[in-house]
C-alpha cells in the first residue's frame, strides 16, 4: 500500500483510452465498475473534445457481482460492435474488473466478429500506470494490424534512402502524439511544418488522428520519428526489429535538440545536411535564428536570468529537454532534476549526471516536494502537481509536462517542439519570475507599501500572503523530519513556528540581516549560513556569520 496525495499518472486503462480516443474508427470496451466513466471527463473537459470518447463501459454494480458478469461483458461487446461498427476493437479491464477475472479479451475473441481486428489488452493495474498502458496499447494495436505484413525472418532491411531511387520526397511517421499528452496537438503541426521546410513529408501521424488503415501504412515510410518515447518507444523498437525501420530518437524540444533532431533525421534518410544546419565558425548554426529564443536569451534584459536556481520535474522526455534548455539556452542553474517515468530512469540519470545533480526518480509527490524544499530553487518547472508544492513553498512555477489540467490545453497555438515551441517556452518559463527592474528595486528599498517583499507586480496580484513572501523560510531540517516540514504552520506575521535548532540559533540582528536578502534567494542563503555555522561550530548566527558564509560560498 502506498500513500498518494497526488498521482502523476492514472491507471493503465486510461493510457489505453488515450490511444482509442486519439484515433478514429477504434472502439474500446472496458470492463469497469459504475463510476469509472469519470475518465470521459478527461477528454470532454480537459481536452475539451466535442464528442464522447469511443469507450463502452460495462459499469457493473454490486448486484451484478452475484450474477454473471461475464455475460454482461459479452452483451456490452456485442452492443458496442453493433452500434459503433468499429474498424478495430480494444477489449480490456479496469483495476476492479482485474480482480474478478472475467477474461473479456478472450470472450471477445470467441464471439465471431469475422475479420474485425480485436486487441486483448492485458494491463496490470496494480503494478503499471498510464503511460505504460498507452505504450502497450499502441504497440499491441499496431502489432495486430501489421501481422499480415510481417516480413519473413531474414528479409533484407528496407533502405531508408529508397525515396531517392523512387523519385519522391522522403517520408516519415510521427509516432506518439496523443490526447492528454502535453501540447501534442501543436507539436505535430510544428514538426510537420519543420520537416516540410527541409523537404521531408509526413506519412502517418499516430495515434492522434489515425485510423486503423493508417496504422497499416506505417511500414511504407522511410523512417519513424519517436516524438513521445513514453507512448511510442515500445512500438518504435518493435518496428525497428521486425520491419527494419530506422527511428529518430532525439526529441526536438529546445533549440539544441531541434537542431540535433534535424541532423539525426538527415543522416538517417541519407539527406544532404543543408548549410544552415551546419555549425558556423562561432558554433552558431544559421537555422537556430528561425526561433526567437536564442536572441531573446542573449539580449541584455535576460542577463538577470543567469544562474537562477531551477528545479525540473516531469515525464522523462520533457524533464530532460527542460533541463537542457534551462542550463544551456536560458543560463539557469539546474539544482534538481527528476522524473516519475521509471521506464526511462536511465536517460534521466544520465542527463542529471551531466548537470552535476542527483536524479530523483520517484512517483511520490511528497518526496518530490521534500526535494524541492531542500534545493530551495527560485523557479520550479514541473507538472500540475508541482504547482501545489510551489504554492506551499512560495516559489514561482511553470508547467512543462503532464499531468496537466485544463489551462494547459490552450486555444492558442502553443507547441513545445521546434522553433516556435522554443518561443513559447521562453515566454512561459520567464513569466513567473520577478521582472528585472522590480527585482533590483525590491533589493534596494524594502519599506514600500505596495511593492513589498516577494511581490511580483506583473502577475497582477496584490501583495503576497505571508506564506508566499518567503519571510520565514524554514531552516535546515534533518531528512528524518522532512515530512513534518510539510505540516509547518505559518503565523500571521509570516514567521514559521519552527522546531528549535539543536545548539544553533539566529540572533535578532542576524535575522534582520537575513531579511534584507532578496526573498527568492533567502531560503538558500539561510541554508548555506546554517550549514556554515554548523561547520564552524557557531552557536549563534549574527550578521557577521551571514557575511562570512556568503564569502565562503561565493566561488
Amino acid at each position, binding site marked *: *500500500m*502506498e*500513500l*498518494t*496525495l*497526488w*498521482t502523476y*499518472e*492514472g*491507471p493503465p486503462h*486510461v493510457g489505453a483510452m488515450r490511444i482509442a480516443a486519439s484515433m478514429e474508427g477504434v472502439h474500446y470496451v472496458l470492463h469497469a*465498475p*459504475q*463510476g*469509472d*466513466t*469519470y*475518465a*470521459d*471527463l*478527461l477528454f*470532454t*473537459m*480537459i481536452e*475539451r*473534445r*466535442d*464528442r*464522447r470518447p469511443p469507450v463502452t*463501459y*460495462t*459499469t*457493473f*454494480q*454490486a448486484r*451484478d*457481482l452475484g450474477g454473471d458478469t461475464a455475460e454482461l461483458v459479452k452483451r456490452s461487446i456485442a452492443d458496442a460492435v453493433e*452500434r459503433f461498427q468499429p474498424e478495430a476493437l480494444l477489449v480490456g479491464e*479496469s*483495476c*476492479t474488473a482485474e*480482480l*474478478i477475472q472475467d477474461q473479456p479479451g478472450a470472450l471477445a475473441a470467441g464471439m465471431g466478429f469475422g475479420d474485425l481486428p480485436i486487441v486483448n489488452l492485458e494491463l*496490470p*493495474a*496494480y*503494478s503499471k*500506470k498510464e503511460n505504460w498502458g498507452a505504450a502497450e496499447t499502441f504497440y499491441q494495436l499496431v502489432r495486430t494490424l501489421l501481422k499480415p505484413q510481417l516480413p519473413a525472418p531474414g528479409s533484407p532491411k528496407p533502405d531508408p534512402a529508397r525515396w531517392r531511387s523512387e523519385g519522391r520526397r522522403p517520408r516519415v511517421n510521427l509516432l506518439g502524439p496523443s490526447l492528454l499528452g502535453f501540447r501534442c496537438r501543436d507539436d505535430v503541426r510544428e514538426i510537420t511544418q519543420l520537416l516540410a521546410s527541409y523537404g521531408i513529408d509526413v506519412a502517418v501521424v499516430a495515434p492522434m488522428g489515425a485510423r486503423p488503415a493508417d496504422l497499416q501504412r506505417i511500414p511504407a515510410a522511410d523512417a519513424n520519428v519517436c516524438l513521445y518515447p513514453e507512448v511510442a518507444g515500445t512500438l518504435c523498437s518493435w518496428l525497428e526489429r521486425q520491419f527494419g525501420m530506422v527511428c529518430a530518437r532525439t526529441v526536438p524540444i529546445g533549440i539544441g535538440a531541434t537542431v540535433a533532431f534535424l541532423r539525426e533525421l538527415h543522416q538517417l534518410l541519407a539527406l544532404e545536411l543543408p548549410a544552415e544546419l551546419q555549425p558556423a565558425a562561432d558554433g552558431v548554426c544559421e537555422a537556430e535564428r528561425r526561433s526567437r529564443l536564442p536572441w531573446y536569451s542573449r539580449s541584455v534584459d535576460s542577463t538577470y536570468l543567469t544562474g537562477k536556481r531551477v528545479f525540473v520535474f516531469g515525464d522523462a522526455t520533457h524533464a530532460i529537454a527542460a533541463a537542457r534548455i534551462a542550463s544551456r539556452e536560458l543560463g539557469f542553474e539546474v539544482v534538481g532534476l527528476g522524473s516519475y517515468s521509471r521506464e526511462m530512469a536511465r536517460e534521466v540519470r544520465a542527463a542529471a549526471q551531466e548537470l552535476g545533480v542527483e536524479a530523483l526518480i520517484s512517483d511520490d509527490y511528497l518526496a518530490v516536494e521534500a526535494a524541492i524544499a531542500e534545493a530551495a530553487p527560485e523557479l520550479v518547472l514541473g507538472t500540475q502537481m508541482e*504547482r*501545489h508544492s510551489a504554492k*506551499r513553498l512560495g516559489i514561482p512555477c511553470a508547467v512543462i509536462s503532464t*499531468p496537466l*489540467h*485544463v*489551462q494547459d490545453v490552450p486555444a492558442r497555438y502553443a507547441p513545445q517542439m521546434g522553433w516556435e515551441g522554443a518561443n513559447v517556452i521562453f515566454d512561459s518559463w520567464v513569466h513567473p519570475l520577478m521582472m528585472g527592474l522590480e527585482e533590483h528595486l525590491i533589493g534596494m528599498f524594502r519599506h514600500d507599501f505596495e511593492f513589498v517583499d516577494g511581490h511580483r507586480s506583473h502577475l497582477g496580484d496584490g501583495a503576497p500572503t505571508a*506564506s508566499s513572501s518567503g519571510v520565514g523560510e524554514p531552516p535546515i531540517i534533518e531528512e528524518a523530519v522532512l*515530512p*513534518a516540514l*510539510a*505540516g509547518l504552520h505559518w503565523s500571521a506575521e509570516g514567521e514559521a513556528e519552527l522546531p528549535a535548532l539543536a545548539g544553533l540559533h539566529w540572533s535578532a540582528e542576524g535575522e534582520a540581516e537575513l531579511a534584507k536578502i532578496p526573498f527568492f534567494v533567502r531560503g538558500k542563503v539561510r541554508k548555506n549560513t546554517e550549514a556554515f555555522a554548523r561547520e564552524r561550530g557557531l552557536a549563534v548566527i549574527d550578521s557577521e556569520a551571514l557575511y562570512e558564509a556568503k564569502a565562503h560560498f561565493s566561488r
Partner: protein
Amino acid sequence: MASSIATRASAETDLPPPLKESGQREVFCGLTSIVWLHRRMPDAFFLVVGSRTCAHLIQSAAGVMIFAEPRFGTAILGERDLAGLADANEELDRLVAQLLERRPEIRTLFLVGSCPSEVIKLDLAKAAERLNRQHAGRVMVLNYSGSGIETTFTQGEDGALQALIPLMPASDQQQLLIAGTLADAVEDRLVGLFHKLGIKRVASLPPRRSTELPAVGPGTKLLLAQPFLSGTARALIDRGAELIRAPYPFGVEGSRDWMAAAASAFGVAPARVAEVLDPLVERGQRALAPMRETLAGKRLFLLPDSQLEIPLARFLSRECGMELVEVGTPYLDRQLMAEELALLPPGTQLSEGQHVENQLLRVRHQRPDLVVCGLGLANPLEAEGMATKWSIELVFSPIHGIDQAADLAELFARPLRRRRALSFA
C-alpha cells in the same frame, strides 16, 4: 404561486410508471462526494483505500484547485496487498500513522471504501476500530463506502454522514436538525429564519467542524435539506429523531413548504409563518420573474446524476414554466420523494437507472431545449446543437432557500441566454 400551492396534484398516481433501465451508467461514484465534503469539514481528512483509478478520479475532479495542504489522499493497493489480507491491514496502519505525523491537525479521518477494497473484502470498519484505539484522543477514525459498485455520486455524502451518526451525542432536547450539506451563507440564512419563526435550537449535519457534532434523540425533529440521504435519515430515525415530511428547499415554493413543515412540527402558528415568510416569497417571485421569461415553455430533459433531479424538475416546471420531457434519477427513494412526486405535473415521465446509449437516443429524438447532464456528455451534446446544463455544479452552488430561488433558476437560464448572446457571423 399561492394558488398553485393550494391546488397541488394530490397523488403520484398522476405519473406514468417510471422507466426502469439498466445498461451503461454515465455517473460518478460516491468517492466524488469528497470534493465538497473536504471543504465543509476542513479539519477532516478523507483517505480512500483503493486503486490508482480512485486517486486519479479525485484529483481529476479537484486537482484544478491548487492545494498547499491536501485534504484527501489514496492508499493505493499494490500487488503485495492483493496477495494477503493481514498484510494489507498492517500496511494501512503504517500509512495512517505516516499521514497523521504529517498532518497533526487532522481531527477526523475517514477511511473511504472503494470498489477494489470492497471486492477484496478488506474490512475497513474493523480497521477504523483498530486505528481508533491506536490513535485514541488525537483523532477519530471512521469508515464509509464511496465505491461505484455500491454508491452513485451524492450517495457518498449519505455514507459519510451515516458514519458520523454513532458519534453524535444523545440528547432529548427539543431541536431542529437539518441534514445535508449547505453552503455556509445559506445555512446562516436558514438558521436565522428558523430563529425568527421561534425555533430556538437548530443544528446542522454535517457540521463545519467534524468534532462539533450535533446531538440527537427523541426531541430531535429531522429536516432533510438534500434528497439523497436515505441511509442518514433512517439512521437518525433509529436514534430517536422524527422525520419532518416536506418537499426539498429548492425554489420559492419548495423552500416555503420546507420551512413551514418544520414550523408546523414545532407548533408555530401559521400566521407567524406567513408573517415571516410571505415577504420573502413575494420578493423571491419578483427575482424569479426575469428567469421565468427565459425558461417558460422550454423543454427540459434531466439525465440521472445526483437525485436532485426530481425536486429540480418540480421547481423548474412549477415556478419557471418549463416542460418536462424526461426526469432521470439514479435512484428513487419513494418515501423520501413522496412530497416531491405529488408536486410533479401529471404525466411526467420519470426514469430510474440508466442505459446511456438508449437515453441519448431519446434525447436526440426529443431535441429538448435544455439537457441537464454530467460533464462527460455536456460538450458532446452542445456540439450536436443542444443546450446543456452540467449537473455537478448543482451540488457546488448555494441553491437552497427562498432567497436563492432566482440564483437556482439562473443556473438553468444562463446556458440558454449564452446561446442567444453568442454570434460569430
